[in-house]
């Protein structure tokens, strides 16, 4: 016992040490140690962020130089704070606060002390900077906008926050990243890759020389120049028309799925989110929760689509063979669901497909919708078929476009109704509102535009996308260049498109005809409600218009959704016609319409629910 006591202790200690060493050097060893090593300093070389052009290579976004004052807290020597703050143009408290924040982040990594000096401040400061050890000026480039439009599409860049830092190891404090829109979506393309140079330091933070003779150093990779599918002229024109209105517009090129315009009203000038006034402006925009200018309605606003849905229901009924174009259904200035009558504004009488569409007859489409369901043994089966057809148009799910945000919209399924009413406790009469685009269906403007694009192409669409070229070369992503086919056969499109063309020729949109251009369109008027002091209150209808033109060689498909704009041909119809003409002809001859749209605003409608007084809706006077 006594003889082996010491030997046992020696062996146990040896094993313990080897265990501890394997924990330290094998388990806890992190291969990413160059970044964490205090003995190595990284000096970054930032490439310029890529420029953004429109589809015709007109500049949208470029860069402006800016100068940040950086600090490395542990290198800071005692200084004349008052004089320095005077040079920087900030007060002492802010200086101390910023310095403390920088210290919390890291005492040896640089942090931004003062953002984006003006050129004058920079000139004044530059020569005196040597006096202040631990501080230096870093040149950066800021975004410069060659347009006042497209704020939500283009997005903006801002400094990385703690979440970004934790998520992506590429970034360090103070760097910029795309926050929304194209800037976020194509962050890596636009950003390029910063170059880095590693320097060996000693404990007192003095440079000793390049780390590993510079073998790990990298050169910066330039950000890519990209061209968007956006048409700058059309985008700017559309935003001009949207002043004073809320809603979304999306225009697509049906033959490619390229997004020509994405407009959300109200919007803001993208330059507001650049420079030292940025945070003030941002707070103002962000706090406007009623008009919500930073919320991109063109892709995020899910609304009942209204009558444009009738075109799809017509196509489904034809595909299912439950009607043909000559089938007639009588309109009794409305139709009956059980004993309850639902109204219709078409004038009444016998309706076939053509007149059903161009007069937007509710009774005709309720009848057709019912026939689809009656074809199948159970409502469940009918629902499945209807849902499948609807979804083949890109509705009820994310479209897959290349922007960072989106909404699914809603195409209800049988499960959805089972949850509401119970299994088998509902029938086609419960869901009849879907036939006219009310009820449970919801869609975003970009989904409606895509739906029109599919009709314009007679049965297929290309996934909408915003990126056209990288460094002058067209994109080749098959996701955007291969067509998606709908479940409707090509032959069924002709009568429906004829009906849509008649909407323009003699139907609900005859007031907004464009000379020389044949347009197929559909008006929509969507009822909507809000809660005022807990009471469900109806507001003025939303004005909806979808169209494509020219009918036989479609160049543009468009969806316009104007909140509380009343009936379809009013605001939405006007704006759609003006944009179609602007895009196809390059100029606008409908001066009357244009004048009206530029002058009229809907602010009085938007003020109603907040007025605290009784108010009328759907007033006929403009």
């Amino acid at each position: 016992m006594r003889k082996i006591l010491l030997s046992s202790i020696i062996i146990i200690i040896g094993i313990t040490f080897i265990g501890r060493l394997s924990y330290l050097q094998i388990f806890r060893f992190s291969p990413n140690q160059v970044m964490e090593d205090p003995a190595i300093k990284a000096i970054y070389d930032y490439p310029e962020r890529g420029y953004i052009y429109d589809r015709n290579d007109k500049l949208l976004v470029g860069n402006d130089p800016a100068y940040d004052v950086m600090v490395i807290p542990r290198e800071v020597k005692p200084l004349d704070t008052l004089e320095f703050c005077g040079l920087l143009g900030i007060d002492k408290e802010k200086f101390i606060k910023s310095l403390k924040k920088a210290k919390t982040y890291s005492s040896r990594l640089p942090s931004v002390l003062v953002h984006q000096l003006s050129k004058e401040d920079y000139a004044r400061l530059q020569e005196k900077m040597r006096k202040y050890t631990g501080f230096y000026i870093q040149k950066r480039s800021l975004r410069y906008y060659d347009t006042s439009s497209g704020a939500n599409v283009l997005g903006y860049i801002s400094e990385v926050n703690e979440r970004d830092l934790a998520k992506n190891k590429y970034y360090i404090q103070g760097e910029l990243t795309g926050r929304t829109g194209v800037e976020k979506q194509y962050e890596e393309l636009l950003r390029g890759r910063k170059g880095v140079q590693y320097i060996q330091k000693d404990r007192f933070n003095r440079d000793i020389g390049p780390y590993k003779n510079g073998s790990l150093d990298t050169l910066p990779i330039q950000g890519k120049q990209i061209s968007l599918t956006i048409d700058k002229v059309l985008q700017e024109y559309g935003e001009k028309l949207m002043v004073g209105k809320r809603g979304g517009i999306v225009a697509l090129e049906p033959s490619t799925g390229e997004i020509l315009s994405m407009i959300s009203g109200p919007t803001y000038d993208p330059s507001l989110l650049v420079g030292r006034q940025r945070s003030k402006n941002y707070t103002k925009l962000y706090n406007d929760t009623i008009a919500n200018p930073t919320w991109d309605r063109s892709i995020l606003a899910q609304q009942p689509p209204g009558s444009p849905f009738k075109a799809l229901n017509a196509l489904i009924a034809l595909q299912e063979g439950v009607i043909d174009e000559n089938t007639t259904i009588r309109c009794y200035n409305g139709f009956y669901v059980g004993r309850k009558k639902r109204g219709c504004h078409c004038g009444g009488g016998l309706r076939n497909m053509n007149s059903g569409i161009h007069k937007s007859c509710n009774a005709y489409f309720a009848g057709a919708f019912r026939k689809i369901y009656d074809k199948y043994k159970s409502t469940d089966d009918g629902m499945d078929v209807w849902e499948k057809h609807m979804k083949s148009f890109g509705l009820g799910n994310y479209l897959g476009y290349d922007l960072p945000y989106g909404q699914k919209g809603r195409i209800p399924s049988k499960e959805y109704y089972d949850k509401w009413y119970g299994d088998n406790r509902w029938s086609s009469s419960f869901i009849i509102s879907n036939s006219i685009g009310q009820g449970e269906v919801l869609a975003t403007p970009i989904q409606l535009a895509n739906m029109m694009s599919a009709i314009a192409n007679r049965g297929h669409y290309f996934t909408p996308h915003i990126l056209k070229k990288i460094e002058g070369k067209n994109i080749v992503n098959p996701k955007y260049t291969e067509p998606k086919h709908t479940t409707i056969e090509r032959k069924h499109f002709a009568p429906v498109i004829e009906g849509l063309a008649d909407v323009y020729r003699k139907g609900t949109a005859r007031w907004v005809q464009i000379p020389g251009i044949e347009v197929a369109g559909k008006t929509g008027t969507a009822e909507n409600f809000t809660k005022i002091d807990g009471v469900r209150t109806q507001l003025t209808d939303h004005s909806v218009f979808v169209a494509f033109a020219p009918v036989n060689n479609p160049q543009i498909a468009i969806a316009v959704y104007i909140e509380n704009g009343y009936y379809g041909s009013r605001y939405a119809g006007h704006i759609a016609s003006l944009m179609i003409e602007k895009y196809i002809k390059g100029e606008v001859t409908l001066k009357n319409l244009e004048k009206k749209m530029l002058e009229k605003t809907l602010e009085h409608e938007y003020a109603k629910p907040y007025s605290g007084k009784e108010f009328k809706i759907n007033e006929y006077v403009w």
Partner: protein
Amino acid sequence: MSGKSVLKRLDWLTILIYAILVFIGWLNIYSSTFTEADQSIFNFSTLHGKQLFFIMASAIFVVIVLALEVNFYERFSSLFYLISMVMLLGLFVFGKTVAGATSWYDLGFFNLQPSELAKVTTALALAKYLSDIQTDIKRRKDQLYAILILLIPVILIVPQPDPGSALVFFALIFVIFREGLPLYYLSIGLFLILIFVCTLMFGTIWITIGLVLGLILFFLLKRKNFKVPIFQVAIACIATILFSLSVNFVFEEVFEQRHRDRFSLWLRLEKDPKKLEEIQKTIGYNTYQSEKAIESGGFYGKGFLEGTRTKGDFVPEQHSDYIFSTIGEEWGFLGTATVVILFTLLFLRLTSLAERQKNDFSRMYGYGVISILFVHFFINVGMVIGILPTIGIPLPFMSYGGSGLLFFTILLFIFLRLDSNRLKESF
């Protein structure tokens, strides 16, 4: 006896391990003091140059140690002990102060650290006393004398202040145990350390609860006819709880904040990870840096002269007490594991050499050598890899330092000299 026969009977395995350790040590001292400006090896103004000089001086002393008559060491051990104690006393008058500790004599070309010498002489003196025919370690009085031999240098070294070196002398208790000091001394000592640590980690209340639960379990499981000395058990329990309470008192009232911080760092008493990191970076700066340096070496290490933290001098005292962290950073797990295995082999080899001695004095001195070297290795490496609190003592044969290398070498080679004579029962 001719010199040739001594060489033949030396244990060359031990010498080989010794030489490898000294070489690895010097290589890493070179790396941690290396600068681009001065790359020559034989520059005695640099630390690695000086260490090379000490290595050569040690070689000369090895020759002297081996050349001397074997019974010289036993016969004069009391005198050596006396001389070294006088030298320790003399420090209070003539000592040179370096970094706050008055532990050196300034000999001009070289600072002599008598506490290093005292390690050798105390081991000799203890072996001499225990091997004396009149000493019976079962007697209380003789136990006391034996322990007094250790305590005198401790008492002289603590006020320098150099508590780390003083601690080393307690390792010699192993020798007394080997020769028959009842093991309950060791058991009680270990038990008190356990209670000390547990009190800091869990508090007196949990220790009391643990004791009560243990007693209940004991009474449930004991054989029926087993008589329990109830009175003694009760006394032991109360004493334990009192000790635990006194630990609390000492920790809170007697210890200073820096001591408390060392313990809260070691036992991870601080539960708030942010505060723990703060302590790690201030009080535990050395340990934190050395741990990080070792960790960053990974399995294969960064390569000789490639350690970034070594080059940047991030670990303080890296060439002396923290030399092991250089090995960790530049040679990785392969290097550190090799060194640990080499030391373990050396200690086991020395243990088996000590056990084969026919002469009591040689065996006891051998145990003294192992105890001293082992406790250095244990405390130093334990501290550098962060499992023991910071106690500044060197790693034998490897750390920079003239006195250290010289006296560790003498310590070891006196034993090898004795071993070479093991076949003769008396001198």
